[in-house]
Structures are given as C-alpha cells and as structure tokens.
C-alpha cells in the first residue's frame, strides 16, 4: 500500500492505495464516490468517465497512483451549493435520463466539451460522447440536452 494525495472536485484527499488500483476503484470503493459507474472495465462504455486536467477520461483505465497532482472532477462535483449545473438540468428536462447508468459518464464527457467549446456543433457533440455507450436513449435526447445546456451557458454565466 502506498499513501497518495488526490485532488478531487477541488479538495485534496489522502488515500492508501495499491499500485494496481484504478482510479475508478479508488473513487467507488475507498472514497464512496459511486457516481462513476463500472460498465465494462475495458474503456469501451464511458460510464466511468471523469475529467482529469480538463480531459474526459475513462477512470477504469487509469491507475490512481498516476493521477496525483492532477485536477480530478467527478459527477459529484458538478452541482455547486445544491444548484444543478446547466448540463444536469438540461439532462432532466430533455428526458436524457432513463435508466441513468450512463448519465454520469455522459455528463462528464459533455462538460469536458463545453468547458472548451461553448458552441459545439451537433457533430462535435456526437464526437465528444463517441466513447460513451447508452442503451436507453439512442443518444437523441442526450444530444438535445447538451445543446440546450450550451445555450443556457451562453445566456447565463456559470462560475
């Protein structure tokens, strides 16, 4: 076991980990942050996406020891002081949530996109969620929700 420091949603936390533990395992099993989901453990479904230094990454493929000193964002950090992020609100309002299992990963891929590009085209949105599988929605309402959130974020300044 090895003691490491991780910066998660702006907070530094110290955890003891094995070198082969993935970030997903540490988030879910050690830190009880179960928002990121294990859908495949092979990096093919995107349900475990978190944002690391601005990039949406499959946390099932990253060893926790390798992300020390990096800024890690998870779905639990998306709403601020109980106020939903525009993406979260848009996912609810557009019906982009059905079973909800892909939702945290989709939100993180979408946030990474909108953080860099506030006016993405539909193709850019499809590409940004290209590594996120959803079996419920056919992606239609997810794309619509991301477009709506982009619009909301254009109209309302978000910290």
């Amino acid at each position, binding site marked *: 076991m090895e003691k490491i420091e991780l910066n998660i949603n702006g907070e530094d936390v110290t955890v003891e980990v094995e070198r082969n533990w993935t970030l997903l395992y540490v988030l879910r099993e050690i830190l009880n942050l179960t928002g990121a989901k294990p859908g495949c453990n092979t990096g*093919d479904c995107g*349900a475990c996406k978190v944002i690391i230094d601005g990039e949406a990454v499959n946390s099932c493929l990253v060893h926790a020891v390798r992300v020390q000193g990096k800024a890690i964002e998870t779905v639990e950090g998306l709403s601020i002081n109980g106020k939903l992020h525009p993406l979260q609100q848009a996912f609810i309002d557009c019906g982009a949530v059905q079973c*909800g*299992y892909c939702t945290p990963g989709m939100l993180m891929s979408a946030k990474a996109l909108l953080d860099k590009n506030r006016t993405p085209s539909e193709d850019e949105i499809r590409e940004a969620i290209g590594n996120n599988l959803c*079996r*419920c929605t056919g992606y239609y309402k997810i794309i619509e929700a991301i477009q709506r959130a982009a619009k909301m974020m254009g109209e309302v300044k978000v910290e």
Partner: protein
Amino acid sequence: MKDYNIIGKKVPIVDAELKVTGQFKYTDDLKLPGMLYAQVLFSPVPHARIKSLDTSAAEALPGVRAVATYKNSSRVKFNSTTRLRTQEWISNECVFDDTVRFVGDRVAAVAADSLAIAKQALRLIRVEYEELPHYVDPVVAMQEESYPIHGSSNIVGKICQNAGDVDKGFEESDYIFEDTYTTPAVHHGAIETHAAIANFDAKGKLTVISPNQNIFGTRIILSRIFGLPMSRIRVITPGMGGAFGGKLEATLEPVVAELARQTGRPVKLTYNRRETMLSTRTRHATVITIKTGVRKDGTIVAQDLKVISNTGAYAGSAMNVVGAMSNKVFKAYKIPNMRFTGYPVHTNTPSAGAMRGYGSPQVFFAQQCQLLKISKALRIDFAELQIKNMMDSDGFDQRSGKSIGNPRPKDCLRRALELKKNWEPLSDEGGKYSIGVGMALGCHGSSTCDAHLDQVCIMIKMNEDSSCIMYTGTHEMGQAAITAQMQVVSEILNLPLHMIDVVYSDTDVCGWTVGDFSSRGIYVTVHAAKKAAEAARAAILRVAATMMQEDEADLELGPNDVYSKVSGKRVERCQVMDYAQQVLNEDIICSATYHATDSPPPYGVHIARVRVENSTGKVEVTDYIAVHDVGKVINRLGAEGQIEGAVHMGIGYALCEKIEYDSAYGKARNNSFRNYKMLKASEMPRLQLDFIEKYEPTGPFGAKSISECAVVPSAPAVINAVCNALGIEIKNIPYHVTEQ
C-alpha cells in the same frame, strides 16, 4: 380527447435528479456492514461432467469464508423465470450442478473478505472435466441422434397455433413463397452489469438486493431453493441501470444467497461485462422458415411459420418466448389461414431469455423481409401490399375471433409516409453510394394475459399534510412506468408531483405484481395506480363530506382545498386529513388490484433510409421514421425515449450485433464491448417519430403499450432498405458485407 393536467405531458423520470448528481444508488453502489465479496468460477468447457472438484486449497486461503459448489449447496431445480407459485414450468437449472452445460456455466463461487482474495481463491480450485458432446447449432442439437443436454431430447417442447385451414389456403393461392431466415443471439447491453447482495439476518430472514425485473417470481425461486416460507425472504430492486429483459430471470440471486447462507454474512457479487455476457442471458437465436400464399392482387391467403429457437443450456424462457412469438403473429394482418409451429431447443450456449420484443423481433424480421420480396415479385407497391393486408381498427385475433381493441397499423403507415415527405434528397455522390428505403410493420402485446395471470396491486397512503406515498411492486429500469403511475396519482388526487413519493419493488412492503416485462408498465400498472388513486380520492371526499356536512357528490378536490360546487364552502386539504386522523380516528390507506384480461397490441411502422458505400459495402442508416399506435401517450418524454432507444437496438440487431459462438470450442468470441458492437452516437440516423393516439377502450386513459413494440419493426425496416439499395435478398442478420 380530455384535457389533463399532467397525463400526456413531458415528465422527467422519477429520481432523475439523483441520477444526474451521481447520488442514485444502484446495487453495486451499496455496501452492508461486514459484507463479503464473491466471485464465480465459470466452466471453460461447453459440456462436461465434473469428474473431480477440489476446493481445499481455496478454503484454506486466509480471508476465504465459503466456497460453494454442488457438493455443499442446494440442489433444488428451478425455472429462473418463474412468476406464479402454481406454475409447473420446466425446471432444469440449479445453483451449481455436477454437470456443466455451456462455457460460462457456474462451477463454484467464493465469498471472501475482499475481491482480491476471492479472485485468488478461484485460481486455487481444481476441477477435472469429463467432456461430453456439445452443440452450438439448434438444428444439429435437435436431431434424434444428438446427445441430450437434459433428459432424453434437446427439443424442449413444441408450440402450435392455428387459424383457419392453412393447407387449403395454399391451394387457393396464386403464388407461394417459402424462405428461411436466421437471427442471432444478442446481448441486452444494459450499461449496468448484473449484481446482487444477499444477507441472512439474525432471525434467519434472507434479504436479496439486486437489479431484477421480477422480485415476486425471484422470491418464489429462493423460497424453493432454500425451503423458506415467503415471509422469510425479502427481495428488493433498488432501480436498474437498464434491463431490457436481461434482468428478468434469477441469475446471481441464488448464488449470492447460497453464499450468505453458508457464511452468515452479507455477500455481494458483481459480474463484469465479460461475465455478464458469458453467464447471464441472451436473446434467442432463431431459424425461421416462412411459407406464404398470396393472390395475384397481393392478398395474403395463408402463412405457415416454423421456428427453431436456440434456448441455450437451461429452459428458463424456452417455452415462454416461443409461445409469446406465436401469439403476436396472429394480430398483425388479416390472414385467415395461419399456422405457427415452434421448437425451443437446448444447445451448449448461454441460456437465452427474455429480451425486448420477446420473440417478436425474430418473427417479424422474417415476415417483413419476405413480404418485401413478395411485393417485388407481384410488382405491387410495398405500402399498398401492407395496407391491403394490415389489421383494420375492428380487427381481431385470427385464431379466436376475439377483439384486439383498436388496432391502428394503417394509421401508422399513412403517417409514416407523410413524414417521409420531409426528407431532403440524398445524393449518391456520383455513384459512390447506393441508396435504399425500407419499411416494416411490427406489433406486440400490452400485458401477460395471453400467457398467464397479469395482476398488480398498488397502495396509496395519505399523510396528514395531504401529501402521499405510493407503494408499487413495479420495477424501475428507465422505462418510466413508475413515473407514469405517479402522474396518474398526481392527476387524480390533484397533487403536484413533489407531494408524492414512491416506495418501489420491495416484496415485503409492496403489493404483489407480475414482474416488469411484456410491456405491461403502462397498460396494466397505470391502470392499478388509477384505481388506487380513485379509491384514495373517494376516501378523502368521504371524510370531507362528513367534516363539511355536505353531500359527497357535490365536492371537488382542489390542489389545496376541498370545496363544494354547490355551496361554495371550502376546507383545506390538510384539515381534512387532520379530521380523519383526530376526529374520525382513521388512516387513509387505499390499495387497488388490477387484473388485466386483455392485451391489445400496439403497432409500429418504421421507415429507414440507408446508403451503402459501393466500394466497401458499408451500410449507414441516414434517416429514420417511427410511428407508433399507442392508444394514448401517458408521458411523452418516456414514450419518445422508448422509441429512440429501440431504434438504437433495432439498427444494431440488423447490422452489427451478434454473439459469435465458435462451434469447435462452444465458446463466444466476443464477450466484451470492445468486440461486441453497439452503435455510437455518431452512427444514429436523423429521426422523426410520432404517435397515433386513438383511444384504446380497455386501457387506462385509452393507453396501450410501447416499449417492446418499438424495437420490432426496426431491424426489418433497415434490412429492407439495404435490400432495396442493393437489389439483393438478405436472409441472415446481422448484415455485414463480409459475411453475406
């Protein structure tokens, strides 16, 4: 139609806020104090007797608390899809057996202090197998000389249905077409994999928490396996990360309960994607021979369907799926002479179970593709051929003459053709692409009543402040049935949604219900919610009438008050509740049971446009139309979502999804999302969808179902488009250019 406050509106799914904040707890997100972690050892061979099994080294490993095998576990045989205690369905599966019947069959399970120890223990279990003949292909397995996987034959049973006189119908036909189609085993692809937690408490009560579509059926199974009364078993489903039928059957639940029994500790078992694909359930692969007799004018006179379905190693859904398939085909067209013969067959592949459409996707693929071929041979426009034969609104089951409600396939087709006019022209880019348009019809049911009892009990408990709790045995898996039930309670009790909370899928707390399958969420469970809410409304008004000394019939339930339409007198709703509690000394708890006696088929017509790259043969679905006859939309977001997801699943079924079994080793080649292809966002077509809302007299608010029906026409619409683009016939899906 009547104007409603909330029925028919766009209402986000219950718990959506928990889901977007990562706070919704699915089974694998839960931890119980002192919980152990389990792993399962799967058979590496497709069919064998276990010659020797040595678990001593695994048991000796520090941290290992139990190693369960056939030697120390319950050997009670069960049917994993049981719904009623009185059903005598074929039961040939047990928790562990001394024979393994597919690669992925359970050999042993370990419970240990950590996942790592459990994994290490698996590697210490020594097994010697005496291999037996194995079969991947049901056509081979069903032959008389094949080695039986159970009993004396691999044919599980025979399902026959008949309308009219098929042989005479063929004699009266001008042309007869006969074709054989095949469909593959596919994976449900719910993003949440299978998981289960079990615990025996100090008084010996077993609690199982798992994503399961059939809690009361699973309770029956566990009761048989462990010899416990139902009062000593509690099954809870916390909400599922998708199911699509894949979580209908008891799979991990008996295993984890056996480990909990042996250890006296809570135990969690979570399958990863590979394990879920290897060892849970698939859709039945089929070989379908369809013979159709038509007149020159396109009237279908007779149709004979012979289906061989690969039900895999165990019989859980063997008879049900083919039985359901046999029921659906008699409700799509006015074909007076029709015969269905189906044989579910055991092979040494994973058990096939329920999957969205429950037999319909297979049989409608064959039927719709052959119909296109017939329309071409007769030189009759495909839409015209469809209209000529489709069920009219006064249609009936071709076998019994019994009414099937208000079938509207023709309206679907006409609306779909209207929407097609919105399509922009699609260029072939100078001959780079071949472009084709395809259409298909599908139908399904709205309840389980064609197969067995369909019943649900929903309870409403009013609180002092006039808010309420709804108790429903319905399972939440993204299909929004519970949301629809809450809308109905909101509508009838005139309460905003935030004043209603729900307790769901818990066998100890909720009234009995058939599981959530057969697309019964709207047609059956909403009916029960309506009855329960009406009872609660009547109870509130009865109390108010006493309190206000008014005639009950004159009272109305406002959002905040009860008022008399005659005298204008009003009291606050919470005062009525206080009066019930403190003056009448009553609690308002109302339950209602709804028993479905009909299953009116919903219909859908899909039109797909594809472009096929001529140099590579690669198919891209560019445009898509889906129109569904649903009676009445209860929740527009939910209903649209069902169709959108079904289009994803259907296009995959047509073009890329298939579990590939290696016949030599009896093993799947693609048990991962890396190798099992599901469509990505960039591969979905432009979509137009619409509903035909024509009142279904037997449905709640005039509604029938949507969820499964939505997937039925999808694959044949896409395949017919490819056939039209390339001028070919396609008889096997998925269609890849390299394989045809």
